[in-house]
């Protein structure tokens, strides 16, 4: 009897055990297929249900959903993970993970995603991957539970925290725990501890969490939260000043880049070069072309696009500058105001040429990965592209100084601009030096264009936005003095950024202009005036 019972039980067990795997799979498939028919407003529940299964396959499914790679087959409502392949999509079965052939886009309909869905996916993924063996996955998970706290995940976080060895992940997890604790039903004492952790963390994120917790907090906890808020805000105010300096430096570096080529063509050579902005624009378009070629032919080299574009832009705009000098400007030496007219005409022609060739609309210039995103330095948020641009501007400046001061070419340039006749008598081929100097100034403008393409529009109007500011910088710094341009650019940048929070962007700019006008009254030849009699000539 006992035996029979045992066999029956074993049989029953076998009978249920084998298909139970299958049944779980079936259940998962049903859940996934339900995504295809769900309304956007019900997606939260579907995602939560998927996450609850705890099945490791869910991670890939949710990731695909978040990225918009989940499609339902119109014919039978089956949902697949997809990947772009040509004009059709290659399908992968979400449950078995096997390839399921290809299908044209028209036969599939995308599982719709919106911000709400992406948030739900982020939350779900966070708690699912907290225990992942991959350290980076855990880091990402910790970040996402921190960003979208969910009281139900508290257990999972504490569980993960117990086994976590990595320092960085641990800190994040502790903060996430504190954040989640505040919105949970835990006792006040634990919450007080959490407030302390958050206070130590500081920053905008903590501010946001604490102030949202303030409203629903227990009466006894409120003073703690308020004190923490006050202390964080005080910190923030200090950092805000530092942040302003950083923004000012960054704006200054943009001004420096835009102006530095002009400091040569206008400052050193005395040509009122209204086509300077167009040189910057040509540099930016060179970057665009380089990226187009790389995208279509060598996608792997995309991160190198700027490095490739820099010398090319220098050559292209340098050549255009050379042509300009030889074709037009050399006939106008000694008549600087007439160079204004001719170069204005040239700038119109260049703009319209670009408009005709590339079209009037903005062109897409991508940021290489090393120029995207930001990092935190204390309370400062520093974006990579701005950091690189500051460094690049300084490097260009240093290289130019070196060229002018330490090379024979630079010596000749300085000689020619200071006393043309004397230089000519000493055997310097002055026309040749003029042409090279102008080409150098133009080439540098082109390199500036490569950098500016990273933060601004690449359109035929790009140059116009910088031309006036560039002239202001050169004149403010003192015509003919590169150090003046450097100091001028950075001081105008910082001044602008300190005025902006109080006066607003428009009024701030007007004030800066008025200050420049007043400053020129005080020092009619700019910050670093050239001294001596030559100035009068």
């Amino acid at each position, binding site marked *: 009897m006992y035996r029979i019972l045992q066999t029956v039980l074993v049989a029953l067990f076998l009978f249920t055990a084998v298909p139970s795997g299958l049944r779980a799979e079936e259940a998962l498939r049903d859940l996934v297929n339900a995504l295809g028919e769900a309304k956007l407003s019900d997606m939260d529940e579907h995602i939560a249900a998927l996450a609850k299964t705890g099945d490791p396959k869910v991670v890939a499914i949710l990731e695909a959903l978040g990225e918009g790679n989940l499609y339902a087959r119109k014919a039978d409502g089956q949902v697949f993970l997809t990947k772009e392949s040509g004009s059709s999509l290659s399908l992968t079965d979400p449950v078995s993970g096997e390839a399921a052939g290809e299908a044209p886009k028209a036969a599939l309909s995308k599982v719709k995603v919106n911000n709400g869905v992406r948030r739900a996916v982020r939350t779900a993924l966070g708690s699912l991957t907290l225990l992942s063996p991959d350290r980076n996955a855990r880091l990402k998970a910790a970040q996402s539970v921190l960003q979208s706290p969910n009281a139900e995940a508290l257990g999972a976080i504490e569980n993960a925290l117990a086994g976590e060895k990595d320092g960085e992940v641990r800190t994040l997890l502790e903060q996430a725990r504190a954040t989640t604790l505040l919105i949970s039903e835990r006792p006040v004492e634990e919450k007080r501890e959490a407030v302390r952790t958050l206070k130590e963390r500081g920053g905008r994120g903590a501010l946001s969490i604490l102030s949202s917790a303030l409203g629903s907090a227990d009466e006894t906890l409120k003073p703690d939260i308020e004190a923490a808020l006050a202390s964080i805000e005080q910190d923030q105010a200090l950092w805000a000043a530092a942040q302003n300096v950083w923004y000012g430096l960054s704006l200054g570096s943009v001004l420096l880049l835009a102006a530095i080529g002009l400091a040569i063509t206008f400052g050193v050579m005395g040509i009122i070069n209204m086509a300077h902005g167009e040189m910057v624009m040509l540099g930016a378009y060179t970057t665009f072309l380089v990226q187009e070629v790389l995208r279509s032919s060598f996608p792997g080299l995309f991160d190198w696009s700027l490095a490739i574009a820099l010398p090319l832009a220098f050559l292209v705009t340098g050549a255009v500058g050379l042509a300009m000098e030889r074709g037009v400007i050399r006939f106008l030496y000694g008549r600087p105001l*007439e160079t204004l*007219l001719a170069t*204005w*005409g040239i700038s*119109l022609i260049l703009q319209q040429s670009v408009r005709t060739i590339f079209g009037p609309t903005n062109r897409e210039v991508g940021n290489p990965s090393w120029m995207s995103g930001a990092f935190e330095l204390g309370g400062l948020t520093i974006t990579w592209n701005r950091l690189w641009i500051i460094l690049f501007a300084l490097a260009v400046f240093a290289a130019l100084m070196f060229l002018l001061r330490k090379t024979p070419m630079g010596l000749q340039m300085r000689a020619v601009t200071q006393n043309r006749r004397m230089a000519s008598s000493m055997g310097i081929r002055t026309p040749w030096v003029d042409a090279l100097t102008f080409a150098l100034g133009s080439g540098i403008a082109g390199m500036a264009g490569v950098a500016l393409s990273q933060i601004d529009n690449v359109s035929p109007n790009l140059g116009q936005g910088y031309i*006036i500011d560039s002239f202001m910088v050169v004149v403010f710094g003192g015509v003919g003095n590169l150090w003046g341009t450097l100091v001028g650019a950075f001081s105008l940048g910082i001044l602008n950024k300190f005025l902006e929070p109080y006066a607003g962007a428009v*009024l701030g700019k007007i004030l800066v202009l008025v200050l420049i*006008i007043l400053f020129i009254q005080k020092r*009619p030849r700019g910050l670093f005036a050239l001294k001596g009699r030559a100035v009068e000539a």
Partner: protein
Amino acid sequence: MITSFLIKSLDRTIVIAVATLLALAILVPALNLLTAPDHPLHVPTYLVSLFGKYLTYALLALALDLVWGFCGILSLGHAAFFALGGYAMGMYLMRQIGARGSYGNPLLPDFMVFLNWKELPWFWYGFDMFWFAALMVVLVPGLIAFVFGWFAFRSRVNGVYLSIITQAMTYALLLAFFRNDMGFGGNNGLTDFKDILGFNIQADGTRAALFAASALALAVFLVITSGIVRSKFGKVLVALRDAESRTRFLGYRVEHMKLFAFTVSAMMAGIAGALYVPQVGIINPGEFEPGNSIEVVIWTAVGGRGTLIGPIIGAILVNGGKSIFTAAFPEFWLFALGGLFVLVTLFLPKGVVGTAQQHVSRRRAYREARGDKDAGLPAAEPMAAE
């Protein structure tokens, strides 16, 4: 004294130019109003307001020529004075709309009503009276030029530095007028004018009268500027243009003279702006665009700097070209315009009129030299001064 000023101011070219302008002031309106539309000599209203606009540009170029051609001050901000005069006139025209605006508010212009302004800003008071607006048309640009010039010339800011800070001035004004909080209608500026001095601004008669007024104003200011540059004062102006330090050492108060010329020129620009606005029907901050001021310089250069007549011709030529090209080759007209500037600076450095005058005087000198060996050299060309 005034008669001697007038007589001095008139030489043959000026007389002919003034006579042409006066003739135009009578003929064009007459042909527009009195002939039937299909008459071969009929001037369509479209051309009347178009040429009316050119004449105001010509007056602006003439104003620039006074300071650039005769005083060596290259102002890259003259369009600002033009726009200020235009705004003063625009404010008068706005107030004339009265309760006929969309919201029927008798006091506030439409743009203030829908942005919930409750009362008229103080600087709009008085603009309902024509005499006050007319006064402001000359006073505001004059005052700004006076203050700006007083500081700049006293500190001996000159050359390129002066050019760039005039550009900074117009740029600052551009940004300021763009601000809606300023109470000048922001980017949209002032539009939808109804009438001027009680006459419907869209009527053919009013347009013809405005054309005549522009031609008359141009003629009057041509005589005045010609009088200024031919007077003793004008000679000193030219002297300080060509050698400022030397003139100063001779005992002239250079900065006062510059200031006078600059202020007069700004007032002329203001009047040009005031005549411009009713003819085009809009004034907005775009007129402060630094590019516009550069264009004025280009008209002057194309026509011939320092010739008085030249800038007038330059303004009409360039703008006429623009009107034709933008319709005939909408995609390529910028090439033509840009090319024109380059070619003129390369091949006609003295501008159309300057080159022609040079040609005429050379021929005359050649003839005289052949006929009379003692006649001496023709008067030296003024040195190019920057």
